[in-house]
Each structure stands twice: as structure tokens, then as C-alpha cells.
């Protein structure tokens, strides 16, 4: 067999060895993506259970708050008051993930945050609270004003993390540094789809007095309803943030699972094409060798 350089027919064609190497590489990548998909699936299951487990608390909380609305002057509480214009700037809480390999999960949130900053904040004057490494890295590189950041909380997600973020947001708002607090995150809709949500957190949107519609119980309040209401509002903010965190966490694993599934399927397709191509190359080589032998024999 002649050397590769001497054979013009083979210069454009990858050698068998190269192809085999390529196939091996794709195969090991596929193994990794497959494993990551399985891991994401099992974590997703747990994350989903947490979302469901957190629901009763949030629902009851809202029910009690709604029941209390009729008792209080809503403008009385600082967390409900709309600040006068010109005071403070909007605060945006951006929840991304700590890791990538999850399709457009992080970039969607960042994009939505970008839109918000462009459209909703006059003069793009905005302060950020960044949860998750991906979002933090993105906005830090671009020199945004960052008030607070949390990285690596998703591995051991606890209510305490939400409490810290909520305290920070409430402090910013009540001190007058923030004119409003909004939240942008991925909501877990289903395994196949996530939805970007932008929510106003503070001032707390006027609670609907559903009390009139739902049959309410005439409670004995201890302490007075106004006092309970005051106690509950900050907890309401905490619960909202906690819900956003666990929703985002579940959505992350769903996105990662889908992305890794697609990657595994893509590599399967790639393997098929490469194998086919490799066989063709091998066939061509064999055919050429036979021709060489035959023509050599004919020449003698």
C-alpha cells in the first residue's frame, strides 16, 4: 500500500484510523450525556416532590392573608405602600442555575432580565440581586450594580436561603433604596417546558379580597388581626421567594434532562452517519487494493 501523500484519491478522505477515533470520541460523549440525563431525571423527581410539598403552606398562608385583608387599611403597611416617584431604583432578583448543560435555561432568564432592564427601568438604572452562578457571572462581567448574590444554594436548598434573600429585599425596599422589587425565574410547567416568569414582589400587589367570595370563618384573633397581618407579610415574601427557588430548581433539572436527552439522540445519529461513512471508506480501500493487484497481475 502506497503512502497517503502519494495517493491523490485519499487526500480528501479521512483515514480509517481517524474515523475510528472520532467514533470512539462520540461514543464516550454519548455515555456522559446519557448518564447526565439519568442523574437529572432522578434529581428532577425529588425537586418536583419539593414543589408539591411546599404548596400546602403557601396556599394556607394566602388563604389566611386574604381572610385578613378586610380588617386592615392596606396602605398602612410599609410593604404595601407604593413609594413616591424619584425615590430609589428598581431591584431585580434574577434566579439562574449554578451550572450549565441545560439548554437555554439560563440564557432565557438572562434575556428576560435584559428586556426588563431595557423596558421597565428608566435610564437602565437598576440594582440586581443574583441567585445562581450563571446569572451572577453574566451580570458581574458587565458591571451592573449588584446588591446581593447567592451562589451554590441549590445543592442544599432550604427555606433559610429564601429567608435571607427576602430579608435583603425587604431591607432594600423599606430603607428606600429600592422603589420596587421584582423577581425573574423559570417556572416549572412540565418536564418538557419551562416558562419565564417576571413577578412583582414589593410593594406587595394589592391582595384581592377573595374573602367575600369564599365562605369565611369568623375567627377569634390573637393578637389583633392588624398585628397578625403585619407579622405575616414578610413571611409571605419569604414564601414567594422560596417557591420561586424550588420552581427554578425543578425547572433546571427538567431543562437539563431534555437537553441531555437531545444530545444523546444527536450523538446516536452522528454515530450512525460516521459508521456508515467509515464502512464506505473501508470498502473503497479494499476495492482499490483489489484493482491494484489485478492490474499488477495483468501487466506482467
Amino acid at each position, binding site marked *: 500500500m502506497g503512502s497517503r501523500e502519494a495517493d491523490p484519491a485519499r487526500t480528501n478522505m479521512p483515514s480509517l484510523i481517524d474515523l475510528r477515533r472520532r467514533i470512539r470520541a462520540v461514543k464516550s460523549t454519548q455515555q456522559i450525556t446519557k448518564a447526565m440525563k439519568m442523574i437529572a431525571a432522578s434529581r428532577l423527581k425529588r425537586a418536583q416532590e419539593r414543589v408539591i*410539598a411546599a404548596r*400546602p403552606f403557601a396556599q*394556607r398562608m394566602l388563604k389566611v392573608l386574604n381572610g385578613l385583608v378586610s380588617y386592615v387599611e392596606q396602605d398602612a403597611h410599609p410593604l404595601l405602600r407604593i413609594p413616591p416617584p424619584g425615590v430609589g431604583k428598581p431591584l431585580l432578583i434574577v434566579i439562574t442555575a449554578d451550572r450549565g448543560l441545560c439548554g437555554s435555561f439560563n440564557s432565557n432568564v438572562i434575556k428576560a432580565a435584559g428586556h426588563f432592564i431595557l423596558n421597565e427601568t428608566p435610564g437602565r438604572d437598576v440594582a440586581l440581586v443574583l441567585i445562581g452562578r450563571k446569572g451572577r457571572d453574566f451580570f458581574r462581567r458587565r458591571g451592573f450594580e449588584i446588591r446581593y448574590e447567592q451562589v451554590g444554594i441549590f445543592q442544599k436548598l432550604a*427555606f433559610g436561603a429564601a429567608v435571607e434573600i427576602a430579608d435583603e429585599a425587604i431591607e432594600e425596599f423599606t430603607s428606600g433604596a429600592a422603589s420596587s422589587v421584582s423577581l425573574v425565574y423559570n417556572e416549572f410547567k412540565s418536564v418538557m417546558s419551562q416558562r419565564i416568569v417576571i413577578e412583582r414582589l414589593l410593594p406587595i400587589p394589592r391582595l384581592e379580597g377573595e374573602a367575600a367570595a369564599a365562605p369565611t370563618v369568623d375567627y*377569634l384573633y*390573637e393578637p389583633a388581626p392588624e398585628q*397578625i397581618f403585619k*407579622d405575616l407579610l414578610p413571611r409571605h415574601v*419569604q414564601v414567594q421567594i422560596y417557591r420561586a427557588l424550588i420552581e427554578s430548581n425543578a425547572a433546571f433539572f427538567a431543562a437539563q434532562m431534555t437537553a441531555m436527552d437531545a444530545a444523546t439522540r444527536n450523538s446516536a445519529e452522528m454515530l450512525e452517519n460516521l459508521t456508515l461513512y467509515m464502512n464506505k471508506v473501508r470498502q473503497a480501500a479494499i476495492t482499490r487494493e483489489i484493482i491494484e493487484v489485478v492490474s499488477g497481475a495483468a501487466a506482467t
Partner: protein
Amino acid sequence: MALPTKLTLEVVTPDRALMRDEVDEVVVPGSEGELGILPGHTTLLATLKVGELWYRQGQEKHHLAIAFGFVEVLPDHVTVLAQVGERAVDIDVQRAERAKQRAEQRLARPPSTADFDFERARIALMKSLIRLQVASRARTRA
């Protein structure tokens, strides 16, 4: 309507529903003082402080450490929404012991300018004390 003879007690924390069971009597740490609840109690909504909740099933008493939140009482149903809730058996005694020491050290220091930290340490101390108390009850019963 005849008075109910049993209470359904539900304890819910932000992360999960901790328990749901039929009980005969519940005592919760209300922010204005302990609240004893028997079946047929009038409807009540009260806030809670850091403290010990216990309930009785027949002769058996069970203890829980809870912190903050509120309780909704209906004649046959008690719902406790607490930020922290732990069954006596689930309490990590060593961790509570460490938390207690930490909080005590912080409180022993002269009060700094930030009263906020002082308040936090005080709450941490209370939580750890309640945890230890509840845990010790679980041990003595066992």
C-alpha cells in the same frame, strides 16, 4: 351540631407537611401565651413564638419543637403553619447543643452597636433551648 370528640392536627412547614393525625388535645406556644386546645374549641387564629408544641393521643404525649408561624383552629381541626418544625425524635441534639453554645458566647459579649445581631443570637438561643428540651422529653419517654 354535636361537639367533635377528636381533633385533626396538621403541622405544615414551608418545605413539607410534617404531620397529620387524629389527636385528643393540643397545646401550642401562642405569642401571647400557651394555648390549650380541646375538640370543639372556638375558631381562632393566633400567631406562634419559638416553643414547644405537644399533643395527646389517648395517654400518649408527643412533643414537637416549632418556631414562628401561626395556628388556625376550627372545632375539629387544628392547622399549624410554622417556619421550623421538628419532631422530638428528629432533633439533632449535638447540633442544638453547639448552637446553644454559639448563641451564649455571642450574648455574653458586650452589646455591640448592632442590636440586630443581638436579637438574632437571642432567637438562636431560644430555638436551641427548645430543641434540647423537646429532645430530652423524647429520651425520657423512650
